[in-house]
């Protein structure tokens, strides 16, 4: 009975950790997209910011597949940063699986 309760508790903690990791990845993707949307910066600089933030907050292995592309938000030209990262299995160590988050920020326009 104690084993089952312990497993349940660890399960709850693990689900919370996965959602937390997802939030971190999305926030990092958004930061990169925001930076890339500025006049004076390039998409590569936005991507580099996302990679830096993920490496610092989680680990390098979560920042392996970061891609930047131009897109649209409403009718506005925008930049989208997409992060594909492993799903953590035990702590941050992953057995497999992949989750994907993306964030889009409209490009700065004069006016």
């Amino acid at each position, binding site marked *: 009975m104690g084993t089952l309760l312990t497993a349940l508790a660890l399960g709850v903690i693990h689900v919370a950790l996965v959602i937390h990791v997802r939030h971190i990845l999305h926030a990092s993707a958004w930061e990169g997209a925001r930076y890339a949307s500025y006049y004076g910066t390039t998409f590569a600089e936005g991507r580099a910011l996302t990679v830096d933030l993920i490496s610092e907050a989680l680990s390098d292995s979560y920042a392996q597949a970061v891609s930047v592309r131009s897109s649209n938000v*409403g009718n506005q030209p925008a930049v989208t940063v997409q992060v594909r990262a492993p799903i953590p299995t035990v702590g941050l160590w992953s057995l497999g699986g992949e989750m994907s988050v993306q964030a889009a920020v409209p490009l700065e326009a004069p006016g």
Partner: protein
Amino acid sequence: MSRQPCHSRRRGSSGRASLEFLVTGIVLFVPLLWGAIVLLEIQKASMATDAAARQAVRVFTQSTSLDSAGRRVQLAVASTLGDFGVSSPHQIDVECQPRSACLLPESWAVVTVSTDVPLVGIPALPVSIPSAVPVDGTAAAQVSSYRGIP
């Protein structure tokens, strides 16, 4: 004759264990799950309002007229909160410092984005808990010194 009490004792023991599991499960895990969900929702809203405020203050200080600035701030905040998946209604507060010099060179703008995170209710709970947690994010930026007067 000697088998009977032994049998009933075993049944009684297993009954207590499942009761313990049920009580511990409800008393321990419902609040744990509820707390985890609420904290993650608050974390999301906190990151979203902070991001929205920073984006809004950038958009505001880059604009050349107050009209377009207000419109673009609203768009920026709505798109940012939507991107983060925060759907609850929000308020935007833009404050210029000094107050009379909105968008003039070297003036400051402070944007506060606030929203209420609705809490997941526990129907059977008799205690009254607040139904929402207010969350806000603030960012400040200065208009460029080389900006023409709008």
